[in-house]
């Protein structure tokens, strides 16, 4: 083998470790007596290293990452709906229509949840996740100061002092601006599930997402909903849940940028979690309508992850 043959036929593959054993023997024999080709090999590997270093991997923007995860979640749901449609004669047309809508736009809001049913078979993988990773979730990551999170915590603390629901829409007096404690005004035996369904419908009428959490499994009951505007005029909804451990507040904004700038340390499905100023926060991006939500709680991060995951299971099965 001469230098020209080595450079033309073997140099690149040698630098890439792509030579066969026979070729390696040939090359080894040549390089042993040729300093110039050894130098070329070093140059070739340097060039590779330069390319890797300076034309390397670019980080995916946080908002794009979130959008993709959201679309995957919707697609995952739509696949199930399609399968379900194929096996159900009675409801096949309606469900196929749902699946089609979800696939077309990745938009279909999940149906309002009417009842709680948690199949153990579905819950176990997610619960297993907590058992495996629970121990790693103590710190919750270091999140830099964030105005949206500060706002969410300030609302939480304000609602701890008093929460005045103004939804469903039919009980909201838009003219006088007065707030109605509508839950109290209703029939005391009115089922919470129906109240949640009403609230979901009302939110949608206000062009906000009607998806609500179901925290019954972790001992938190729905306490009321409120529609409001931020100081800049953007709409916002507050949904409050109460339990023995305190409150969980879900705040939905009509602007996903509110949370996309933050790199959250933990992910479960469409949700991301962190600890911030002594609170546990969960952010979720809705794939359509450009919504984002922040859930605020004082519970440990593992417990909130579990609560949100169980809610997802409970609500997606209905």
């Amino acid at each position, binding site marked *: 083998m001469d230098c020209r043959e080595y450079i033309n036929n073997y140099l690149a593959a040698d630098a890439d470790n*792509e030579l066969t054993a026979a070729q390696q023997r040939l090359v080894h024999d040549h390089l042993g007596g040729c300093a110039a080709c050894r130098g070329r090999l070093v140059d070739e590997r340097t060039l590779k290293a*330069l390319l890797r270093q*300076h034309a390397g*991997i670019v980080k995916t923007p946080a908002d794009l990452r979130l959008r993709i995860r959201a*679309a995957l979640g919707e697609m995952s749901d739509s696949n199930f709906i399609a399968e379900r449609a194929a096996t159900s004669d009675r409801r096949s047309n309606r469900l196929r229509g749902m699946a089609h809508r979800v696939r077309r736009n990745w938009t279909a809001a999940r149906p309002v949840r009417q009842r709680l049913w948690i199949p153990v078979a579905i819950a176990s993988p997610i619960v297993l996740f907590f058992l495996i990773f629970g121990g790693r979730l103590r710190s919750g990551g270091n999140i830099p100061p964030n105005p949206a999170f500060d706002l969410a915590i300030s609302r939480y603390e304000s609602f701890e002092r008093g929460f005045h629901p103004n939804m469903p829409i039919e009980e909201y007096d838009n003219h006088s601006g007065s707030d109605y404690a509508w839950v109290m005004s209703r029939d005391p035996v009115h089922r919470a599930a129906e109240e949640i369904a009403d609230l979901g419908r009302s939110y949608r009428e206000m062009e906000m997402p009607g998806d609500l959490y179901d925290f019954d499994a972790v001992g938190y009951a729905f306490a009321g909903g409120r529609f409001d505007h931020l100081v800049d005029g953007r709409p916002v909804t507050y949904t409050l849940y109460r339990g023995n451990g305190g409150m969980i507040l879900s705040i939905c904004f009509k602007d996903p940028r509110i949370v996309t700038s933050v790199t959250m340390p933990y992910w479960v499905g469409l949700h991301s979690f962190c600890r911030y100023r002594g609170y546990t926060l969960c952010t979720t991006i809705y794939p359509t309508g450009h919504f984002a939500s922040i859930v605020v709680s004082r519970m440990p991060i593992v417990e909130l992850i579990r609560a949100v995951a169980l809610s997802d299971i409970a609500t997606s099965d209905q």
Partner: protein
Amino acid sequence: MVVQRKTMALKRGRSRDQRLRFEQTAMPHLDAVYTAALRLARNSDDARDLLQETILRAYQCFHQFTQGTNCRAWLLTILYNNFRNSYRRGVREHAAASDDDFERGLETQSFESDQACFDPEQIFAGRMIGRQIELALDSLRPEFRDALILIDVQDLDYQEVSEVLSVPLGTVKSRVSRGRALMREALLQLAPSRSKTGS
């Protein structure tokens, strides 16, 4: 009815299992696929669309992925097919950015990774070299550039590159060899121009 519910629960469980496996297997390569999409589309908006289409298509076809093989290569194959089959013809023309815009975009995005290094002089020197590498890469024909990027940046082997680009193995070898030679020439040409400007 009970049997039907059990069947539904199993199907939903399967769907969630697939999602979980996809999250664990494919999503760690998101940055690599985004980088490749940026280089193909040469435009941030189109790259975002291309990436999203690729990931969703990969999810739909995830049952075809062979466990134990290189998932990054599999995703890049889908990306390149997607780009070849529809993207290049349709979307790209109306939104193609200039090379300068594209490089500036890459520089801006890669700036985040510079934050780990706190020596401004070092950052500046690194970015000067990076600029020359980008210029040299851009001077290559796409087939040479793709081969080098897939080998040197994306860490694929020759066989995987052959599958991603749908070309024979021998063609990959010659493109890598020729591409590096051209790259070296381009860098040598850029070096004197730098000294002339005194930078």
